[in-house]
């Protein structure tokens, strides 16, 4: 088989450029294989983050031919290999080096989320309860949804908006059958759920096929709207002091 040209971004916070590498290909090869080939034979200091190489850990996120994707899942036979394949780091996060960005902001956000708070009298849990929440719990934290979200990517609202990944996390907590915390206030004010205008870009890039917009964000938006903007509920709250 012929060599394929890869244009891989090389550089750090100060700047850089795409560098071309010719890589021999083999059947079933993915972009991460090519990056490993470059590391192993052409440029040992090429920085890349990866762990499992099986689409289970969500470490090898990048932008392949301009599209946010896991490199371990980007098969060459699904890409036009007669042209150079570009591999760039995620744009939404500050660059550390080459394909590695500083994603620590996400871990800071995670710490702020009010944790799981079990209720006193726990009901019996059935498979349907598990299935409903597991859609959110299967997130592998690749942060591709954060990368593609224009509120974070173009408008740089990291201070006001936690991004799709954390609405998935919030949905997992809010819909957990045994959780008793109320996160409406947090979702409205700290998490900034109002910023999301439902363009569904996040859902499109999710490698775990989580229906981020439909199943997580929209129900959470409804929850916040019920809590803060429903006049009937507002009246009852005033009258009886319930939440």
């Amino acid at each position, binding site marked *: 088989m012929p060599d394929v040209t890869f244009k891989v971004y090389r550089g750090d916070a100060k700047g850089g450029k795409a560098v071309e590498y010719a890589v021999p290909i083999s059947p079933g090869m993915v972009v991460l294989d090519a990056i490993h080939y470059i590391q192993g034979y052409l440029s040992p200091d090429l920085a890349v983050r990866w762990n*499992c190489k099986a689409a289970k850990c969500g470490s090898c996120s990048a932008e392949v031919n301009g599209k946010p994707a896991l490199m371990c899942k980007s098969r060459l036979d699904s890409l036009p290999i007669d042209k150079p394949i570009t591999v760039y780091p995620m744009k939404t996060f500050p660059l550390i080096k080459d394909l590695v960005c500083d994603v620590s902001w996400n871990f800071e956000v995670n710490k702020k989320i009010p944790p799981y708070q079990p209720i006193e009298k726990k009901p019996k849990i059935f498979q349907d309860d598990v299935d409903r929440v597991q859609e959110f*719990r299967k997130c592998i934290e690749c942060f591709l949804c954060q990368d593609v979200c224009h509120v974070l990517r173009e408008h740089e609202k990291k201070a006001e908006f936690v991004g799709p990944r954390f609405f998935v996390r919030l949905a997992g907590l809010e819909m957990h059958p045994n959780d008793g915390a109320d996160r409406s206030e947090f979702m409205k004010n700290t998490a900034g759920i109002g910023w999301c205008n439902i363009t569904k870009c996040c859902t499109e890039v999710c490698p775990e096929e989580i229906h981020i917009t439909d199943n997580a964000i929209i129900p959470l938006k409804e929850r916040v709207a019920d809590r803060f903007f429903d006049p009937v509920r507002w009246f009852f709250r005033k009258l009886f002091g319930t939440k």
Partner: protein
Amino acid sequence: MSYETHEHDVLIIGAGGAGLRAAVEAASNNLSVGVVSKSLLGKAHTVMAEGGIAAAMANVDPKDSWQTHFCDTMKGGKFLNNWRMAQLHAQEAPDRIRELEDWGALFDRTPDGEILQRAFGGHTYKRLCHVGDRTGLEMIRTLQDKGVHSGIDVYMELTIFRLFKDGGKIAGAIGYWRKNGEFVVFKVKAIVLATGGGGKAYQITSNSWECTGDGHSLAYEAGAELIDMEFFQFHPTGMVWPPGVRGLLVTEGVRGEGGLLRNNKNERFMQRYDPQRMELSTRDMVSRSIYTEVKEGRGSPHGGVFLDISHLPAERVKKKLPSMYHQFKDLADVDITKEPMEVGPTAHYMMGGVRVDADTGASTISGLFACGEVSGGMHGANRLGGNSLSDLVVFGRRAGAGAAEYARKLAFFPTVDKNELEKAAKDMEAPFQRSGDEDPYQIHRELQESMQGLVGIFRTEGDLKKGISKIEELKQRAAKVAIKGKREYNPGWHLVGDLKSMLTVSEAVAKAALARKESRGAHSRLDYPNLDEKFGKLNVVVSQKNGEMNISTSPVPEMPEELKNLLAENK
């Protein structure tokens, strides 16, 4: 030189299931706890665990009990296990699972709302609690979220490369930040190693880049004893095609859910090797059987055998094995609901590790503790599937408590010697000062090839000796590696450190394998094909003496009468 320095009562090295459970436990004692993670938090190899976590909850098979789980574990380990660890593990696993659910985990359910359990190799009853085939992800997220709200400090993408002692006691550690290559010093009272295994020493492995045996190597260099290093588990079912995914794990859950193994003659070949248990035999047995089928010309087109689950309804396969379905569909163009998978053995798990006290996880060095895959003894000569996830939480908790108790009793922080610190930093920087063309990637490839070919599933004295001399040669060459570029996120430089760990682990595996002149569990010697009663009473011990690797044996701890009787009844 001055370095970024942090002080912790307890430092946990490793942030997988065992490390996080240990951290939660240590932090509950009101101590200052640091957790060092080689990659980002939540990416540790635990995330790859698929099939389930073993515990005698008796939800599906009411006859199950800790006693049966204990007997299964000992039988699976060919009676070389530390009996006390096997006992604690079987007794405490159900509580640890209930605790995970108390912290927000959600396992699959039986129709009446109990935690569902599935069958696995070597387990008498249906025993594995699971979430589809993503059990490890569920565990690590639960522990991660519990951990970050327990007041622990997490150091992400930081690699430890040396431990320090003061007199005989653990005093600290030095590591580097991946992002900028700067050194970081930890001054501590106690250290818990939870670094996992070292599968990256092999060519075909299910392990991720992190699994380079760092903890085994750190403990060895600090003077601790390692046991059972000759026992390296080859998981029977890794992917064999396409080349880029060779070795990737195919969960035992496939067989647990009813998957069948066939050769190219369409025979269910396990009939020949273990007619009673067939596909649900122990991993050592299934791996040897697959290897033999392939070697004798009855393999699949790409050098494996066929694993078939397509006789089950497609919806059931997608529901119970969702990530297997996607893994094969996305990476190999195989629809497992319609056609068989091709699978073969893959280096998966180290039974061997740091010798520890069963109750506290204490190693033979004061202040050094170990839990999870980096510790030895629990699984004996062969681990049963599902017993690793339970091991992580049972002994993670115990090691965390052990280290906390030790740290509490220590009135002062021991001192890290300045000269030792300087020397460690110098050693780590040395590759930048060297010139020449020794390349760490090339040495790694040669090591993987040698371990695969000479220290693999079947072993002989001749091969092992060749392997040991190759490792010796690679050690010499690794000491001459020259690195170009800067210290910022430089994977070539990082590999120099990882390589050192892998070489230590490889040497220990090969030398211990040479010493055990019998076949037992995962250790199969073609020149000594039978069990030898004499070796059945001995652990092989690896330790450092005067800078050299020393191999000795010590008697397997004697079991109390009541457990002996239990085993006799459960024959």
